């Protein structure tokens, strides 16, 4: 088996970009690669639970949490969103064509051993706590990303 490693920085929380990131991650894992994905800024929203437990937060954190999408299922297209209509149309077409949803791809990625690491600074800034993230997500900082990227032969920023 090939032991090449891949790292992906998921900066964007856009539906289309998340699709690309997870399809590459799942594909690489299926090629026998070790894959590590780092979620920072808007990308972090993809790892949020749709129905998070109540946690203590200050006003700003609560506002941020309320304004940003909870989970990949609520992500919007980067283009042609048209107030959500474009995203709904795209999702319907993808379902009809049997394309996996981002949530399904996340489950598959975890199943194949892809490591999901949430950036702690982004979590702090956006007021997102670990209890609000889906199970199986690790926490880390820039050094853990650079450590993995150093050993990888492909490194993407999406």
């Amino acid at each position, binding site marked *: 088996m090939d032991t090449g490693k891949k790292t992906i920085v998921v900066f964007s929380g856009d539906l289309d970009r998340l699709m690309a990131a997870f*399809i590459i991650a*799942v*594909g690489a*894992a*299926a*090629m*026998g690669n070790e894959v590590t994905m780092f979620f920072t800024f808007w990308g972090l929203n993809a790892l949020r639970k749709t129905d998070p437990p109540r946690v203590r937060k200050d006003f700003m954190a609560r506002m941020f949490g309320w304004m940003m999408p909870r989970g990949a299922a609520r992500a919007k297209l980067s283009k042609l969103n048209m107030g959500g209509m474009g995203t709904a149309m795209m999702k319907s077409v993808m379902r009809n064509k*049997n*394309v996996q949803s981002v949530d399904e791809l996340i489950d598959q990625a975890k199943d194949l051993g892809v490591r999901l690491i949430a950036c702690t600074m982004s979590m702090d800034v956006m007021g997102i706590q670990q209890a609000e993230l889906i199970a199986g997500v690790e926490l880390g900082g820039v050094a853990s990303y650079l450590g993995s990227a150093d050993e990888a032969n492909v490194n993407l920023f999406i």
Partner: protein
Amino acid sequence: MADTQIDCKGLQCPGPIVTTFKTMKDMQPGDVLTITVTDRGFLKDIEAWCRKTGNKLLSLDEGDIITAQIQKG
């Protein structure tokens, strides 16, 4: 030698590759997997997959339904 067949018709990328990977994991070296797929990208994908994972592509039939035979290396 055990032969295994899987049906990935209708699955979109990366479904067929993921299914191939998972199925092959439980097979023994020398075993042959026959897989049927409708995703056209699979034609190139399976060649790359076999090359990178050290498995042997025995045959690749490019009909409307693509059939590939892979031997576990």
